[in-house]
């Protein structure tokens, strides 16, 4: 990277995340006036958006090529009191917490206390949600049965397609006009409602154009003052770019990047959308302008690389808006889940990989930033070179890019009723969620704690942590005669809690649709304009609501242990087991050992355990999939945890798989840590017994040491592992290449790292099985390898 990029990158890395009350103050100012009172809600939201975009400070950093910040400075993160009004205590926690802090200055705290809290308290959607859901929902939420994404973050979970690269916002405004005319001539009974939505979209379109103009003015002003001739020319060119886009379709690679960036800022300023926003298939969308500029000689590969790097830094400057409470626990990270997609297939189903794909992979490797995240879609039609290139980056221990199966994504989308073109143009966003880019609102509504449901089943509807009855009376477990009796009780509890969750979701969906529409985002997602409906109200072509199952490994191993020891082998009675769980295995160490060591476990390609996993999957699928949401779409499942497996583990006592109270659950569809002992092929086989195609995404993590991939031969074998997993319809796999630190942990706690395979010059072995000297030698070697 060149000096400019190096400097911008360092600046981004050094910037300390802080809270900015700019947006909050402007929103309060707007709503304290009376200009919104005589207009509809969508129009007032659009006016508020326009107000913020026209007043917020313009920040252009030294040497930048792509301009625009969400806050007044890099990593200055706005708050959204219209969504969640932070208390002063929240501010204190955010400022001082050890993990993911946000600096809050005294002035901000003062504004929050004097202006923001008095105005928004009781009006924020968070307050409205907790007022509107029923007691059963509150009880289950507090017990840690599920979380709720939309209680302090807006429905986002969507990705842009290629529409902005051939059309400008003036074109979108024309579409809006046309839609208003169509509605009038169709004598649509909802005409007034729809017209208000469309009027709001038009206001939001003007707002983004105006925002770009303000950047153009500022850039021009800076150019006039600039003494360095070269920079002056750059600033003038950038000013011109900001006058052209987003009003018009971009005519160059640089314009395309700047255009997207304005759109990105618009979406994440309007609301604090969960999964920020995402340009999606970057190597596809930018390829046309890239190729055209390269061919015309306007752009060199080096310049394109620099622009992409500058673009990357912009993402890193925008930490996820701060989360508090349970929501902070389920997803505690600065990452705002913007997942760049590369590779895959074109709309016609052909290999989509091009030279820009590889250039972007270079950028990912060189930038090594937390944001944006990146992934490579791998179709059977993509060349092996693509996987090998991705593995080269993965093995440096960066954790990116993750690998996705294009054929699985396409089939998942088709099963949900998308057209083949929309499916092929789709991909994955957030962590692993499948979506039809540019055409779908696919909301994650919250994590669901499958293991907690088992705990409640084992206590006949009572949460042993609180002593409160929150489930149904599904029977005294001592009196079950067979595993089926127990399983059926679990199944009934599961349905009970899913019903509560879905009922709550429907209430929450309506609140968002009515109180906080998103006119700006609605411009960008088909068919909100044509339908005259807001994104938050089912305006998108497809509307999916997900509930994310968590802890598949733990719940499987727990039910497996009960079946094996209590009902099949009759080693112990249910009463004895419950007693041991209650005491967290104190005084029951031998039983604990037996549960851990002498029980079939998920992740070993053993049908005894894997069969139970499939049964759980079917129950979960059946209780959720296909149920209608309030936006004309359906509820679906996926299996991923972010960090919720830690939170969910903290609310559950000891479990029948031998896990101690409070310990994190298994994550994604990965086996319980250390439960898989037959190597990676067995893990992949077990995971492939999940019917991935009936989900909207699953997450599988695998650990490797860098030695395994140190030569081409090793990398090729890992590539074959990936191809094999994808042949079996696996959705996603991520390789965490372990570092010396992890190996040291494995030395101390071998029982947690039994799956860790290391290469010992020509041989591989389980790390924990090695003697101390050899372990140390490998640790030294790993330290030496790191970062290469």
């Amino acid at each position, binding site marked *: 990277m060149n000096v400019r990029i190096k400097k911008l990158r360092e600046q981004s890395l050094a910037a300390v995340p802080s809270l900015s009350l700019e947006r909050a103050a402007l929103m309060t100012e707007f709503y304290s006036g009376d200009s919104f009172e005589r207009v509809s809600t969508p129009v007032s939201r659009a006016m508020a958006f326009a107000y913020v975009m026209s007043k917020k400070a313009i920040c252009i950093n030294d040497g930048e090529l792509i301009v625009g910040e969400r806050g007044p400075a890099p990593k200055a993160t706005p708050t959204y009191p219209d969504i969640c009004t932070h208390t002063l205590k929240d501010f204190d926690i955010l400022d001082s917490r050890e993990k993911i802090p946000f600096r809050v200055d005294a002035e901000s705290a003062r504004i929050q206390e004097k202006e923001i809290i008095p105005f928004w308290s009781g009006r924020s959607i968070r307050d409205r949600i907790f007022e509107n859901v029923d007691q059963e929902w509150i009880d289950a939420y507090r017990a840690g049965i599920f979380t709720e994404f939309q209680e302090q973050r807006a429905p986002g979970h969507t990705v842009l397609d290629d529409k902005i690269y051939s059309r400008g916002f003036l074109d979108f405004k024309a579409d809006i006009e046309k839609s208003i005319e169509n509605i009038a001539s169709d004598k649509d009974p909802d005409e007034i409602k729809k017209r208000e939505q469309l009027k709001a979209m038009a206001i939001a379109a003007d707002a983004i154009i105006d925002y770009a103009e303000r950047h153009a003015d500022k850039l021009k002003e800076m150019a006039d003052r600039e003494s360095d001739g070269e920079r002056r020319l750059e600033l003038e060119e950038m000013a011109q770019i900001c006058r052209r886009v987003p009003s018009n379709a971009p005519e160059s690679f640089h314009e395309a990047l700047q255009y997207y960036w304005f759109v990105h800022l618009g979406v994440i300023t309007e609301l604090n959308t969960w999964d920020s926003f995402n340009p999606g298939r970057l190597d596809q969308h930018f390829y046309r302008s890239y190729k055209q500029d390269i061919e015309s000689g306007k752009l060199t590969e080096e310049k394109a690389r620099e622009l992409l790097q500058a673009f990357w830094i912009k993402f890193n400057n925008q930490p996820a808006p701060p989360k508090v409470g349970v929501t902070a626990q389920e997803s505690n990270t600065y990452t705002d889940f913007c997942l760049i997609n590369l590779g895959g297939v074109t709309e016609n189903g052909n290999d989509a990989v091009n030279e820009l794909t590889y250039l972007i992979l270079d950028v990912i490797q060189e930038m090594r930033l937390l944001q944006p995240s990146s992934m490579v879609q791998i179709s059977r039609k993509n060349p092996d070179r693509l996987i090998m290139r991705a593995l080269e980056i993965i093995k440096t221990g960066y954790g990116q890019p993750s690998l996705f199966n294009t054929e699985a994504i396409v089939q998942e989308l088709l099963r949900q009723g998308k057209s083949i073109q929309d499916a092929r143009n789709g991909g994955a966003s957030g962590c692993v969620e499948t979506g039809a880019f540019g055409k779908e609102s696919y909301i994650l509504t919250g994590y669901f704690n499958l293991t907690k449901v088992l705990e409640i089943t084992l206590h006949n509807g009572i949460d042993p942590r609180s002593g409160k009855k929150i489930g149904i009376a599904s029977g005294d477990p001592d009196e079950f005669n067979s595993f089926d009796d127990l399983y059926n009780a679990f199944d009934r509890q599961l349905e009970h809690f899913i019903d509560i969750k879905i009922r709550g979701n429907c209430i929450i969906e309506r609140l968002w649709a009515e109180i906080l529409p998103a006119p700006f985002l609605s411009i960008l997602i088909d068919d909100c304009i044509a339908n005259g409906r807001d994104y938050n109200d089912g305006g998108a072509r497809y509307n999916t609501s997900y509930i994310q199952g968590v802890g598949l490994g733990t719940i499987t191993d727990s039910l497996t242990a009960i079946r094996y020891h209590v009902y099949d082998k009759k080693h112990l009675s249910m009463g004895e087991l419950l007693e041991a769980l209650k005491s967290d295995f104190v005084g029951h160490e031998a039983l604990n050992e037996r549960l851990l060591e002498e029980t079939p476990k998920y992740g070993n390609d053993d049908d005894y355990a894997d069969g139970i996993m499939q049964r759980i999957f079917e129950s979960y699928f059946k209780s959720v999939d296909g149920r209608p949401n309030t936006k004309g779409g359906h509820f679906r499942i996926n299996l991923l945890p972010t960090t919720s497996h830690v939170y969910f583990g903290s609310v559950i006592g000891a479990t029948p798989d031998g896990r101690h109270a409070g310990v994190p659950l298994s994550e994604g569809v990965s086996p319980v840590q250390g439960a898989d002992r037959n190597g990676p092929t067995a893990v992949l*086989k077990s995971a492939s017994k999940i019917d991935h195609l009936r989900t909207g995404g699953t997450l599988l993590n695998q650990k490797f040491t860098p030695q395994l991939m140190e030569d081409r031969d090793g990398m090729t074998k890992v590539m074959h592992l990936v191809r094999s997993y994808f042949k079996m319809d696996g959705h996603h796999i991520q390789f965490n290449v372990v570092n010396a630190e992890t190996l040291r942990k494995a030395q101390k706690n071998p029982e947690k790292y039994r799956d860790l395979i290391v290469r010992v010059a020509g041989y591989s072995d389980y790390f924990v099985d090695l003697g101390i000297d050899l372990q140390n030698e490998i640790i030294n070697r790993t330290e030496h390898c790191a970062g290469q």
Partner: protein
Amino acid sequence: MATAGIIFDIKKFAIHDGPGIRTTVFLKGCPLDCWWCHNPEGREGQPENFCVRTRRGGSGGNWAEKEELFGREVSVAEIMTEIIKDIVFYDQSGGGVTFSGGEPLMQPEFLKAALIECQESGIRTAVDTSGYGPADIFDEIYDLVDLFLYDLKNMDDHQHIKYTGVSNEQILDNLKMLAVRGNKINLRLPMIPGITDTHENLEAILEFIEPLPGIRDVSLLPYNRLAEDKLERFSLNSRLGRISSGTGNDLDAVTRRFANRGYRVKVGG
């Protein structure tokens, strides 16, 4: 299939025992007694107990001793159940199953029956052998095997007897026979510092194999401390003494030497 055999391990995702992703079945029993043996639990033909030391949790790093049984009798059907599970990986990667040991030829009927089953299931096979066994066994299984991972240690018979306990005569004869018959050999040369990796020994190996058209692939197996480490865990004495990895002949030079004579050389399995 009623034929039973004794194995001491089945290892999935074996990536150093032949091409692609493989499952390696370790057959118990070996007529050799190599000083550098890294599978001491594979020597005896019958199941046996070892006192194995493992590190127990905690930073103190205490060694816990545990009597552990190595070896179990299995039917061909049983091992096939395990082997077949990973077919998708073999197909994708050009891998398959490797019969190793011990010395797999020590259980010829079991080996043959398993090889037949693999062939019928469309699974490629490799046999990892010391080459020490009757020629007619090689003859019988030849058509059932896709690749022989064939170990060659010392060309000097005195040395061979000293370090492995047996003469190399039969090993060399069998190698010659296989190499004349076809091109199914991956010659594997353990690089034991000062014993097998010497200039004279490597030159003698080259002289021996050059007239044999069936040998094109040579793997150099670097000596590593895994063997010592394992002996320590099994509370066995190492006759080699401690050799730190990296000593001995320069692997790059050995690689070049074989490559210059037209061989495809690989370091590691």
